[in-house]
């Protein structure tokens, strides 16, 4: 069966009262953007609680579905047969043709589920189901009705046109990116932060990112790894403005003047400050990190509190209560895991103390930080001025192995 259209059902958008159009428009826009590289002529239009996506004459079906499965806000993707003439006779015949084309002579149990958004339609819903069922039974010896637990539910939706479908491909859920503001993700080369970016985007948040580079202690390959990660999650989040901050001098200043066991925590406070600076500049309203309680020394409750103390913006930590394995599972699903485990050191590990503080006290850390006064301000300024921003967009190469 060659489909020329999809009926796209969305998840929570449906309940958003008067703002619903914002979400629907965002979803239509994301669908258009994400399909533009597959073929010209996709058209996504709102249609009474659904989005109707019509496809050009020639397009790659698998690739289109794969792409749609990455668009947050989509709850289900239904490849549909469009029946322009919705008089009941032609509707039943066309439904029969659909069933023949899709199921051939396979023995199946079925049920017709009809829906009439056009209430002026002369036949009422239960009657449509009954008559349609009867027609199909007469026409195909291989069909049997099972109203409780059918193998196939044949959906017939009567709108301006009529739509018939029986396959419902699950989408990722969530909300369309762009519908819920923008946030700045602190992206490292690790496993957690890309997953955090993915998860926040799933709630409709546009994501920008900041990475702290410490050449020559961290290599160009470590940076490339982060760009690769950003590229993978950008398939879900849309284009990411990746801020590459040279952190070396700040880090060395801290090493030189502060106790080594406080290095990581003080570094993280500077990273948060810098991230917040860039967030404000880009119009982001929050920071996002991949932290999870207790995972490492800098992520104990006390450390998180001390790190958090430098931020004015809310800091979102979508993985805060996740076990490592749960995070790994998601990273494998979205395809970041194999990149995250490439063995390039990032600036957090390179000078790490053997026994970093795990229960830092804010006043102690602040006292240590005062030793940086007079030198660090200029270094922070320099880091801000020398930031490199690159626009990371997802690869347009179709990787079939990534289809779930």
């Amino acid at each position, binding site marked *: 069966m060659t489909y020329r259209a999809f009926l796209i059902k969305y998840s929570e958008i449906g309940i958003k009262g008067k703002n619903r159009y914002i979400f629907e428009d965002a979803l239509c826009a994301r669908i258009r953007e994400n399909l533009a590289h597959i073929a010209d002529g996709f058209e996504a239009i709102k249609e009474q609680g659904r989005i109707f996506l019509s496809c050009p004459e020639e397009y790659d079906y698998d690739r289109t579905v794969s792409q749609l499965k990455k668009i947050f806000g989509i709850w289900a993707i239904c490849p549909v047969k469009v029946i322009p003439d919705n008089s009941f006779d032609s509707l039943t015949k066309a439904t029969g043709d659909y069933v023949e084309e899709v199921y051939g002579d396979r023995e199946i149990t079925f049920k017709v589920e009809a829906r009439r958004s056009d209430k002026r339609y002369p036949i009422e819903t239960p009657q449509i189901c009954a008559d349609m069922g009867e027609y199909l039974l007469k026409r195909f010896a291989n069909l049997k009705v099972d109203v409780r637990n059918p193998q196939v539910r044949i959906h017939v939706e009567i709108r301006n046109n009529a739509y018939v479908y029986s396959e419902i491909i699950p989408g990722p859920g969530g909300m369309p990116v762009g519908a819920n503001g923008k946030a700045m993700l602190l992206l490292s080369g690790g496993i957690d932060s890309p997953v955090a970016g993915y998860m926040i985007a799933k709630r409709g948040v546009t994501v920008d990112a900041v990475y702290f580079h410490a*050449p*020559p*202690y*961290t*290599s*160009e390959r470590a940076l490339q790894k982060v760009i690769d990660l950003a590229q993978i999650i950008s398939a879900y989040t849309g284009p990411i403005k990746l801020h590459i901050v040279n952190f070396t001098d700040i880090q*060395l200043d801290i*090493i*030189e003047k502060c106790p*080594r066991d406080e290095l990581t925590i003080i570094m993280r406070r500077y990273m948060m400050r810098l991230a917040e600076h860039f967030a404000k500049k880009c119009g982001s309203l929050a920071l996002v990190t991949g932290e999870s309680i207790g995972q490492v020394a800098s992520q104990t409750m006390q450390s998180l509190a001390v790190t958090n103390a430098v931020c004015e913006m809310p800091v979102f930590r979508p993985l805060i209560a996740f076990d490592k394995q749960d995070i790994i599972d998601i990273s494998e699903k979205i395809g970041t895991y194999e990149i995250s485990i490439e*063995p*390039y*050191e990032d600036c957090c*590990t*390179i*000078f*790490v*103390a*053997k026994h970093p503080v795990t229960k830092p006290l804010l006043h102690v850390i602040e006292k240590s930080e005062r030793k940086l006064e007079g030198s660090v301000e200029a270094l922070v300024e320099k880091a801000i001025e020398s930031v490199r921003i690159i626009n990371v967009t997802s690869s347009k190469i179709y990787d079939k192995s990534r289809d779930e």
Partner: protein
Amino acid sequence: MDIYLDNAATTKVCEEAAQAAMNAMMTDYGNPSSKHTRGLDAEKIIKNATRIISGSIGAKPSEIVYTSGGTESNNMALIGAALAAKRRGDHVIASGYEHASVYNPLISLKDFGFETEFAPVDEMGHIKTDELLEMIRPTTVLVSVMYVNNEVGSVNDIAAIAEAVHKKNKDIIFHCDAVQAYGKYSISPEKLGIDLMSVSGHKIRGPKGSGFLYVREGVRVRPLIWGGGQQKDRRSGTENVPAIAGFAAATEQYDLKRREAVERLYELKLFFVNELNAIEGVYVHAIEREPDGSFSASGVRKTAPHIVSAGFEGARAEVLLHALEESGIYVSSGSACSANHPGISSTLKAIGVKKDLLDATLRFSFSFETTREELEKTIEVIKKILPVYTRFTRK
């Protein structure tokens, strides 16, 4: 201007080689096995290349088997010769600091019922011949010793080792990994007593994916790659004509320039190692010292002209490498070692380099085009950055 001192990893392809490869891709693009003229033209390229390449080592054209490079040559030599000799015995010996493309095939031979032993190496990076000879048993079928060590540039006396090995048992197949030696030395495997010799093209400014295995007439090697029977059944697959053409062109250039260039490189190396030696906390590996601790021309000449290995006390190799890179100087770390990547160089360990220098060693490797100015600049940069990068270390 970039200063590329990682020529033992790979070299920039020379103009002549690029032209020859280009010609074989764009003009004489035929398949040498095709019966028409296009095929004949390609076959001619291979014949001509083989004449140059076999000539460069004083071998017969029929003794050259083209491969995809050093790794394949080593695999073919070791696995192929061991399997072909299996009826005679099941014991193989190699030196304890061979390249991974020798070491790992030998380890894999265990699956075929072979036992592999590795002979120890001394501080100067030479295989301990006496101990090697003691390892030889009646069932020993294969001995592999590298010509020039790729990490520290030490040179084994292949003629003496091969002779001693064959004296114990003339049937033992003697393999030599000459990847770092080819082009820099005039090598005649026949005179040296080598039965199998591996060579790679991209170390001498030829294209990547080129290389050969010298197989002395009469030595049996079981093919690793089976197919259409090219290269007299020894290595099937359409010959990589562009790579072979480029490789031959590069060989020609090296043969033309070698005498003069190697002389010059030894002078540069002497200058460079003495400059390094004079820097506090820098230790040059595997070159004999004079009583006063310096290096002499005769000491340096016992090593390969193009490789220098030195440890930088208190620094981390990878960090230094990236710091040099910031000044446009490209070198390699003697070992790839980091918290996530615990693969300390077997060579450095084998030659007894101090533990704290294992992860602090850089390799500088020259090409025939390396200049004194480049090395002066490198020394200058090292002097400048070393204090910075020994100040901040892991705790």
